[in-house]
């Protein structure tokens, strides 16, 4: 690893100094001031003009509408919501729904994408062809089409609630979604959670110790049996002492639909499946490019040291590939989050659907609502890429470059 060490991405002082003229000195600084003033003036003109026009047209403006009662229902909410809540609450409901489907999508897209990408590079002919076919098929079909396919062709074909597919009387699959038992915490939940926390700390400590021993003596300690014992043993022990940490609330068919339990609506499932499989195809290509960018001498050197194939991949190839993978991977995460707004086509209540859709048409306050929505998407994107840069920086540091 040659070249200059990478700067931490959030080093504010260096950034500030560069922003204030940088190499161009004071003339550069002056130019930037002029630009900022010009932009501020244009922004002011736009806002002023819009406000005048709204007033002459007698269109309500301002953000006061956020505190009036929404009065409409939403099919899936992660936070408590009822019709008598405010539009601000609707905004939060939409935002949490967008985040939920994006996070689930990102996790699965990453897992599938890495598996397919590495699979495509595999020396197994069948595996690499299947991975190749997956990539070519998925990334060449429009995303909206795929969402509608999952929603209308696959999930809508599930039976009605009364004939739902029943697994052990606890999981129910129907065209209204997936009903599952909902855990309700008891008094024993707290010790149980603490036990898991302690177990996790133990695992971290064990890892550190084993690494230290490895570096000091070259001897590898097998820690997985101890890890397993801590992770399973400790929580189980609390169950014996304090009793069950939760009871299960089972879904029961009552009237038209299931009540009780947890339910994942089919809109969420269709969107999450489509988003993660679609982005996975692109991530697979990114992973393939990243792995291929690592010089073949590197794994060969690893093999000659006597490392196993898995260790070569884990310790030598992937860390180097990650430097190539991370920037385009971040783009895919951003795309996935933004693409979740296609939810509106299948009635999943995401931010665009309930806030930039329903709320907008009920209040008519297009400018405010579009501005808030833009600001939120911008913030989500900036936060995502900031987290990814921090991750990339830590990773390159841990590699000792």
């Amino acid at each position, binding site marked *: 690893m040659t070249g200059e060490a990478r700067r931490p991405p959030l080093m504010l002082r260096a950034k500030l100094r560069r922003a204030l003229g940088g190499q161009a000195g004071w003339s550069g600084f002056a130019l930037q001031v002029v630009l900022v003033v010009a932009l501020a003036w244009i922004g002011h003109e*736009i806002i002023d*003009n*819009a406000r*005048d*026009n*709204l007033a*002459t*047209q*007698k*269109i*309500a403006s301002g953000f006061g509408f956020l505190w009036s009662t929404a*009065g*409409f*229902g*939403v*099919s899936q909410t992660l936070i408590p919501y009822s*019709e008598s809540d405010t539009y601000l609450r609707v905004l939060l409901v939409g935002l949490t729904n967008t985040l939920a489907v994006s996070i689930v999508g990102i996790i699965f897209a990453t897992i599938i994408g890495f598996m397919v990408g590495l699979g495509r590079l595999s020396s197994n002919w069948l595996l690499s062809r299947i991975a190749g076919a997956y990539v070519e098929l998925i990334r060449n079909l429009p995303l909206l089409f795929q969402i509608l396919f999952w929603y*209308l062709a696959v999930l*809508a074909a599930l039976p*009605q609630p009364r004939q739902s597919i029943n697994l052990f009387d606890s999981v129910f699959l129907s*065209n*209204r979604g997936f009903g599952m038992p909902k855990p309700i915490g008891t008094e024993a939940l707290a010790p149980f959670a603490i036990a898991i926390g302690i177990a996790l700390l133990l695992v971290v400590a064990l890892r550190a110790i084993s690494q230290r021993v490895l570096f000091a003596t070259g001897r590898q300690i097998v820690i997985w049996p101890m890890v397993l014992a801590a992770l399973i043993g400790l929580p189980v022990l609390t169950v014996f002492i304090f009793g069950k940490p939760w009871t299960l609330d089972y879904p029961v068919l*009552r*009237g*038209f*639909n299931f*009540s009780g339990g947890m339910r994942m*609506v*089919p*809109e969420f499932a269709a969107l999450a499946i489509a988003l993660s499989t679609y982005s996975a195809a692109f991530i697979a290509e990114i992973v393939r490019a990243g792995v291929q960018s690592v010089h073949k001498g590197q794994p060969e050197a690893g093999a000659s040291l006597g490392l196993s194939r898995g260790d070569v991949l884990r310790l030598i190839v992937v860390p180097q590939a990650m430097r190539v993978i991370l920037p385009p991977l971040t783009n895919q995460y951003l795309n996935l989050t933004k693409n979740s*707004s*296609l939810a*509106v*086509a*299948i*009635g999943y*209540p995401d931010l*665009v*659907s309930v806030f*930039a*859709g*329903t709320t*907008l*048409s*009920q*209040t*008519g306050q*297009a*400018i405010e609502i*579009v501005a808030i929505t*833009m600001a939120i998407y911008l913030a989500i994107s900036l936060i995502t890429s900031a987290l990814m840069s921090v991750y990339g920086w830590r990773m390159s540091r841990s590699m000792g470059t």
Partner: protein
Amino acid sequence: MKSATLMLTLAIAAGWTAQGASAQTLKTVKDRGVLSCGVTQGLPGFSAPDDRGNWAGLDVDLCRGIAAAIFNDATKVKYVPLSAKDRFTALQSGEIDVLSRNTTWTLSRDTSLGVNFAGINYYDGQGFMVRKALKVNSALELNSASVCLQTGTTNEQNLADFFKGNNMKYEVVAFSTADEVVKAYESGRCDAFTADISQLYAERLKLTTPADHEVLPQVISKEPLGPLVRHGDDQWLDVVRWTLFAQVNAEELGITQKNVDDQAKSDKPELKRIFGTDGSLGEQLGLTKDWFHRIIKATGNYGESFDRHVGPGSKLGIARGLNQLWNKGGIMFAPPIR
């Protein structure tokens, strides 16, 4: 995404260009040579392309009537199909001159959206459609049901009020276009489909076997539907409003598309005023003397339009009900032309 981009463009356009578009709509339309009329994305009976691909329906007849009054040519209309949630922004931003799209007149819309309602061309109410196989006889038996609807409508809040008021639970599944609602309802995603009753009858025609579905008798709201224009242009409001009133008055006076030429020659003082052979009512509207004649010649009277598109003479087969004239048992009433 397409609709999000549209919303953004329209929102910005509303901010920038509103002043130019807010006054003198009549002059703008005359100069342009064509009326821009916002309609639905396809609601049989109200605004939908017919067998030959021409827009037709009760709401479309109003657009045609206005075009006839201005240009003496009912075809000089550019139809702009709009979803429920995009319709107001399209009007505010000046993309359309008049919104004739089964829109419910409510206080908040009238006061906060920068629009004015020109009148009511259909008295409706919200109801429910269900599969006959469900054996539901009343909307009050819908506790815990999933209900599909189109977002951006008054239906959304009425539904919440109705279920809350009757202490019943429900799950709402909201889509942005009517066709998506129909698809979801047909696939069994929801137990009931809620919309204005006229719309339910119209959407039912799109189902594979319409006979398997029924519209429940309960009406849970008042939905007076009518055309609307931008706030702040009184002359244009008058043109739209009196086109509708002309159609209703024509029915009351027995003037039809067929007999309008003969009636125009009548010596009756009332008819002479209406047809412009006496006085200058048409010019006062900013139109021509024969404005009334032009409208009825092009679209027929309200009753004819109703029968042709939504009434017994149409596929929908909806009874006149409240939409019958005031002197025949309904509440359709137009101020006199004098």
